[in-house]
């Protein structure tokens, strides 16, 4: 279906629809946040019942999450030693998985491979040779220092997959300082030989219909690359495009795993490939609250990849270049281009598009400022930008309303998940805090003389206690995933890092719920956000 995935240049009817839909997420969140305390004041009985229902939901959700986090962690551990090159060779040569592994993780990985292979061979998908695969890696640069870009490019050089099949493509904003521009061109000259080619495109300012967003820069670079591929006669169906944040350092296995996943995917032109984004580049250099927050963000993504049916692209990811051109690239007027590209594809292909998780990590920077205050404000703004992904909701809903071919189940699955996700994001940390305070609020009330007051307090405190078990599991896995600390590894620092987890409730209110609520409120009030680049590391 042809659908303009934008809130610009709409007809009056579409504009009204858009405006109404923009109000819904914020209105829902505010209704919950104000409704529960108001209800607590006027009808403590009903409020207590709702709180028990909410806390039970929270507990089961925590355990549900913990189970999938464990599974995701286990899957990641299973694939850690996988030789992707060997698997690609098997796909190329049509062989079978190698002999049995001694260790259980390897055996599981092989079993999963055999299963995928069987499915692939049964499918009628066109076979593809790995030698034909070409990787276009777009790195968008606004004003980030060349050191950050160089680290990302170095990551590509160190890829276990043949760098000669990779084309880095720096999408540089015309407004970038001259020094950065020079550095990028120097880098192109020096690094070109490592790769199939090294492209640099300068995104001019003031293109009609564009906003100052990353998607506009990436789209311009992809359009230029399209011309390049046509000139070099490289078929689009052989190209995998990866759009990376400039600070993304791909795991050496990333392109191997991606190539394998792309080759074995029966409908590779109808899928995006999502690695697990982690924020480990500078994790030991940032304040404790930022470390706790980003570990939370990383494990959230780990959980997400276990649910491919509802998985949406986030941050750095890859997809077929053919699909990218067919859906007319990233939105050029939206901040949340990383998820918007998936929604665009989903609508374009009438629901026949999905995200395939790939079990490797891409590591990024945690936003840091020159001092703690700047780090705090920087992180807050970054999370608010992430939460601004809620801008997709009204557009997507309009798209669903227009698209008659897409199955209702897919519409419901994604629509409900998006709404519930935004509602939970903005309200759960606040509600959990409020639940702790309510007994005190009611202590002088007539309600304090009822069995329900004591009974609900008891139930809620038991649930809190049980949810701690699930929370501890997530913390332990997050810690297990962390890169080993180079310095300051003494008992003192171990204790300090453990204590950092006590910041969790505050961190999630200030840097998760509050920015999400602000983003939803802005959308509700029509006060749209502009794109701002997060400062990544002090050198930036």
């Amino acid at each position, binding site marked *: 279906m042809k659908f303009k995935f934008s809130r610009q240049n709409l007809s009056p009817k579409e504009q009204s629809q858009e405006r109404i839909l923009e109000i819904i997420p914020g209105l829902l969140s505010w209704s919950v946040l104000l409704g529960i305390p108001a209800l607590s004041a006027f009808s403590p009985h009903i409020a*207590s*019942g709702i709180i*028990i*229902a909410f806390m*039970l*939901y929270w507990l*089961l959700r925590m*355990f*549900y999450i913990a*189970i*999938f986090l464990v*599974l995701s962690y286990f899957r990641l551990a299973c694939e850690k030693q996988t030789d992707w090159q060997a698997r690609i060779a098997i796909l190329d040569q049509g062989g079978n998985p190698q002999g049995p592994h001694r260790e259980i993780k390897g055996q599981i990985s092989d079993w999963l491979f055999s299963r995928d292979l069987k499915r692939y061979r049964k499918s009628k998908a066109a076979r593809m040779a790995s030698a034909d695969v070409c990787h276009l890696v777009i790195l968008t640069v606004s004003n980030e220092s060349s050191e950050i870009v160089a680290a990302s490019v170095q990551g590509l050089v160190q890829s276990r997959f043949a760098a000669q099949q990779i084309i880095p493509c720096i999408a540089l904003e015309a407004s970038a300082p001259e020094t950065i521009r020079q550095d990028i061109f120097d880098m192109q000259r020096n690094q070109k030989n490592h790769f199939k080619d090294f492209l640099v495109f300068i995104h001019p300012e003031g293109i009609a219909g564009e906003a100052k967003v990353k998607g506009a820069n990436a789209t311009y670079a992809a359009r230029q690359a399209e011309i390049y591929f046509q000139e070099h006669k490289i078929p689009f169906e052989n190209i995998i495009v990866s759009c990376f944040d400039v600070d993304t350092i791909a795991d050496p296995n990333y392109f191997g795993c991606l190539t394998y996943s792309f080759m074995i995917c029966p409908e590779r032109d109808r899928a995006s490939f999502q690695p697990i984004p982690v924020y480990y580049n500078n994790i030991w250099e940032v304040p404790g609250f930022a470390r706790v927050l980003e570990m939370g963000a990383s494990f959230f993504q780990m959980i997400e990849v*276990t*649910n*491919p*049916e509802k998985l949406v692209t986030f941050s750095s990811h890859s997809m077929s270049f053919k699909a990218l051109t067919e859906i007319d690239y990233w939105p050029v007027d939206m901040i949340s281009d990383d998820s918007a590209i998936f929604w665009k594809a989903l609508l374009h292909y009438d629901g026949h598009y999905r995200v395939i998780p790939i079990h490797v990590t891409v590591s990024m920077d945690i936003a840091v400022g020159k001092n703690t205050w700047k780090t705090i404000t920087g992180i807050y703004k970054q999370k608010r930008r992430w939460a601004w992904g809620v801008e997709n909701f009204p557009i997507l809903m309009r798209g669903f309303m227009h698209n008659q071919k897409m199955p209702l189940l897919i519409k419901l699955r994604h629509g409900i998940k998006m709404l519930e996700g935004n509602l939970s994001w903005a309200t759960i940390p606040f509600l959990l805090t409020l639940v702790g*305070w309510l*007994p*005190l*609020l*009611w*202590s*002088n009330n*007539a*309600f*304090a*003389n*009822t*069995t*329900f*007051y*004591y*009974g*609900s307090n*008891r*139930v809620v405190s038991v649930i809190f206690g049980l949810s701690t078990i699930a929370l501890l599991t997530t913390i332990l896995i997050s810690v297990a995933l962390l890169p080993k600390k180079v310095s300051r590894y003494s008992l003192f620092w171990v204790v300090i890092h453990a204590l950092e987890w006590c910041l969790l409730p505050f961190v999630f209110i200030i840097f998760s719920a509050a920015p999400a609520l602000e983003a939803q409120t802005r959308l509700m009030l029509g006060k749209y956000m502009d794109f701002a680049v997060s400062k990544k590391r002090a050198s930036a």
Partner: protein
Amino acid sequence: MQLLRKILFALFFSLYVVLCPLLILYALGYIFTPHGKESLTRTGLIRLVSYPSKAKIFINGKNTGEITPATFSSLRQGSYRVRVEKQDYLTWQADVQINPSHAEVIDPLILVPKEKQFKKISDASFDSIIPILKTDYLLLFRGNKIKDTAVYSLSKETIKPLAVKDFTYDGAEIMHIFNQQKDTQVVFKLKHKGKNRFVILDLTKEGTAFKDITSLFIDPDKTENVFWQPENRRHLFVRRGDIIDKIDLDAEAVTPEWVDGILGFGMGENEVFVLKKNLLITKKVSDEEKPEAYPVPLQFQAAFDARQHYKIEKLEKDIFLFIGDQGDFIVSRPPYQMIDEDIHGFEIEKKHKQVLLWTKHQIGIMQFEEDSSKDSPFEPGPAIHWLFTKASRIEKAFFAHDGSHVLFQDKDRVYLARSELYAGEKANEFFRVWEGTHFYYAEQKGSFYFLDRRNSYLISWKLIPDEVLLQFMRTSEQEKEGKTA
């Protein structure tokens, strides 16, 4: 993974659907008895919090194995004999009636030590004792002359003469003492060489001589009462008959007849209340704002006795109490006149909107708390429940610890009781005081002060040990925070 996810989702969803109503029913106090007459029964509970804690709890004679603080839920309707025991403390026992969905909260329950270790504070005898309520000071009298009066500081544990040496009015007789709760400023009406004098003193300022403020009184002989607010000590309001004069201590000026024709007078935070025949006027102390006048209903007017002067107290925004100097007690809510008997005294406890009042033989608590059942078409009025009705002669009564307990003196015997007594629950008799004198309980110290019945020495007795008191204060603070929040 997808299949596993679907199975787990179905499992968790089913768990939620089953558990959620069960948990809510459990919290509401429902219990399920498969073979009972009524399979689903709504129960009640008992919450017990004692000071000190860790006391053993027995219900219907059986040791529950629980120690305080504890909650006993799923109790069917009926009467339960609850006993609380702790070594070195008197056993507390009561028959607690349990009603469905209702929580019987026995918090705080102050346990009384078996052994009373009285501490002698003075080696000299006194005739009487007047506490400056909710401050650090007690006034001790030996006769009624200034020179024979002493001040005891609770925190410093020192007794000092009230007046400095060679005080002009050393030999003057104390005719009346005017003071306000929570304020260390005291005004004395003295009789010196046949003339009435008014002197003022701040008890915290040691060695400071009294200040004679008689010149600011329009008619010292006819002065009946002096009012002020601890937050605004500068302004004194002097009542003589149906007239109020306003004194500005800083400016040493007086506004005669600031208000006249009054039936009653009282003070709140930075405001005064004036009762006229058909109007209740609230007026700012500063005179900056226009007074507000409220017409008095006819039925309310009929309740007043024009021969009495009424002291006005504000309990809440819209609840006023009028206490006549001959024992009338009238409230601003129907039925206005609550008791026929003359009251001998009262004390207000604002936190729970309750008033402790006593007559010669009875002690009662008047509750203004809103009725939780708003389904009734009738507006609930204030209600008095009588704690004791057969006392010999109530001398004094106090609320203690946020109104949870009542301390009272019947003739020379001092008792402690919880404000809401269960059947079978008794007031504890503590000690006896010097005939004709009163006791004082300093809540912040958990200690009693009184004159010994045998030799009239000043004695103290600590009811609540410091560590328990600390625990107690902490809980009260948390409750207050809750209320503020």
